[in-house]
């Protein structure tokens, strides 16, 4: 039914190893059978690479150190948010508040810095504020049976409102505040003009977050509980898994990561914070998660997929910019259309495998 596999997977030592020619096929199809949930994610990777290749051919300067650095650095906050959203969505929930939490944490944090609070402490407080919003959502959801959509929508309004109440004009961190260090340019490779590989601490924070999330989801019991809750909550409950604790933690993590994204973004724009930051970012994060192959119903998906999803969005914007001939009216039609193309393609791929 499937073409002869070219890559031979190492045979799991625990499977009875009868080395016959047919066995290779079986091992392959066994691996295939186990890895069905990877397909959408792999599809996203393939699509991402093809987008880059297309852009390189059509517009040039894509595989270019400067372009790559900008892509990675500027999408660090988006990636952090996508990671947060992935964890929440895997548990079968959703967090609409992330964008607004970014706004609140950055405005409040920068104001604290301005008020003379130690810069590092202020950064920690920013993350803590984010976690508090997450805690509020988590408690509403877990203990008061409020649906995640509604609870986090309320938190979105609350965070946005509080941010606006703090200030409707941009606020700036004092000169030399530690948050600016997070945007220090580390020139790793110095090429001609802007063709440099320049990364910032913010980027590395995102990398740490991604690695941490992968570890959390795949190597800790709480992480596995996230998947179990997303798969079947009542089963998880009856299996004796700590559903309540896990769910509240999920939202706390999401809030804290939103706070962290706020830190990284604020650093990126030179220590400036504003109440209008992050409008609609939750939808970008959700789109990244979906493109990365995670099911919105929960239980199936990968953090790395969401990272790829964010990069796909980044590449999309890059192409739009490089092309530069878009009519503004068509902007959202095109972004919507491409999102649709992605999910359709994944749908086709996953359908094929089930036939």
């Amino acid at each position, binding site marked *: 039914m499937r073409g002869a596999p070219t890559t031979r997977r190492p045979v799991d030592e625990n499977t009875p190893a009868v080395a016959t020619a047919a066995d290779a096929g079986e091992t392959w199809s066994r691996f295939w059978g186990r890895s069905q949930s990877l397909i959408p994610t792999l599809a996203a990777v393939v699509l991402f690479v093809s987008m880059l290749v297309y852009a390189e051919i059509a517009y040039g300067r894509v595989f270019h150190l400067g372009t790559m650095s900008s892509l990675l650095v500027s999408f660090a906050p988006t990636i952090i948010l996508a990671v947060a959203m992935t964890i929440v969505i895997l548990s079968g929930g959703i967090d609409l508040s992330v964008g607004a939490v970014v706004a609140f944490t950055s405005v409040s944090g920068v104001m604290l810095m301005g008020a003379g609070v130690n810069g590092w402490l202020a950064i920690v407080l920013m993350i803590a504020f984010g976690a508090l919003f997450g805690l509020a959502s988590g408690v509403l959801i877990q203990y008061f049976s409020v*649906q995640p959509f509604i609870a986090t929508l309320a938190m979105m309004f609350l965070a946005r409102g509080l941010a606006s109440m703090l200030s409707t004009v941009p606020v700036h961190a004092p000169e030399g505040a530690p948050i600016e260090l997070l945007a220090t340019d580390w020139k790793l490779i110095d090429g001609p003009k802007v063709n440099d590989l320049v990364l910032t601490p913010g980027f590395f924070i995102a990398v740490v977050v991604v690695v941490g999330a992968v570890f959390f989801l795949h190597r800790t019991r709480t992480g596995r509980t996230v998947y179990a809750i997303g798969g079947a909550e009542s089963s998880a409950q009856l299996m004796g898994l700590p559903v309540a604790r896990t769910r509240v933690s999920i939202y706390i993590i999401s809030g804290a990561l939103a706070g962290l994204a706020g830190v990284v973004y604020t650093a990126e724009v030179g220590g400036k914070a504003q109440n209008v930051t992050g409008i609609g970012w939750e939808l970008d994060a959700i789109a990244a998660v979906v493109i990365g192959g995670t099911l919105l119903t929960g239980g199936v998906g990968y953090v790395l997929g969401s990272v790829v999803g964010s990069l796909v969005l980044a590449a999309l914007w890059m192409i739009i910019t490089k092309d530069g001939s878009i009519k503004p009216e068509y902007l959202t039609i095109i972004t919507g259309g491409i999102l649709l193309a992605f999910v359709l393609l*994944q749908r086709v791929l996953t359908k094929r495998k089930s036939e």
Partner: protein
Amino acid sequence: MNRLRALTRTPWFWGIVGIAVLLLVNTIKDPTYLAVGINPTTGQLSGNVLDILRVSAPIVMIALGMTFVIATSGIDLSVGSVMAVGGAVAMVTLSNLGQPDSVGAMLTAIGLAIALGALLGAVNGFLVSVVGLQPFITTLVMMLAGRGIARVITGGQNTNAENAPFRALANGQFLGLPLSFVLAIVIVIAVSVVMRRTALGLMIESIGINPRASRLAGIRPRPILITVYVLSAVLAATGGLFTVSEVMTVDVSGTGYQMELDAILAVVIGGTSLAGGKFSIVGSTVGALLIATLNKTVLFLGVSAAATPAFKAIVIVALVLLQSERVRALVLHRGNRPQTPAAPLAEPAQPKEVVA
């Protein structure tokens, strides 16, 4: 006492309480708040309550459509954009026809708006039921695309038009009530009758609760899902018509912007679960009225623009808390068995769609 208890368990009861409290707060600020008088210049009845009813009409429409989509365990994020599409079609049609007093022009505009709305809804329904994409992402795409379509229709301009009959949709009165509200209620009643007199409502609920079992019981999910999304979009387009008829201008970026959130809130406040299943039309209507009252209260109290979202958040949290079993138990001092009723005997088992 028992009645009261049953009543407090009706989710939309708290929606009504919420409306009452908001009206009370306004009345405290200004004792004449509830007064209704005749405006000598326009000859129409006028009063804050009438304003609330008028601005609630579009919300009632989108909340109604959203109710059925949510009952099938879907969601329709595109209603706001479809409102803009409906409004754009109407304004462009009227401004091109240029017959400021013609009822025919109005009907043409309405017909075209609703037809395009239905088409967009059918696309949603097709993608969800036939292609098998997840409703959230499907309608998110339509939310983006719809906004763009509205812009393309008007060429990106905010378009205005003159047509007296169309203008009267929102600005006219019928028996002293705003015409748009009366129309909205008539539509609500008509839809309720259809839902309950036929088995459509039952089937929507059944699909929302357990699609696999419903299929085995011989229910065809596709036509029902498509119907539901078309209905939602048609009602959204209608809501868009009410909105643009207010000011006879379509604001392609602004009309219906983020209204999907209002609609979803209204539905949830009305007691329909986002997980799908049983729906309440009365509840959603109450929810929509609450949102309208809330929006108007914010204005009346002069809550600063900056604080408005926080104020809304607090009201929403208060409401959902009141609806929660746990808080109700505390408030009514009835027993302390928080866990028992929620315990799942049978988890709503829904086959997880593969990808998107």
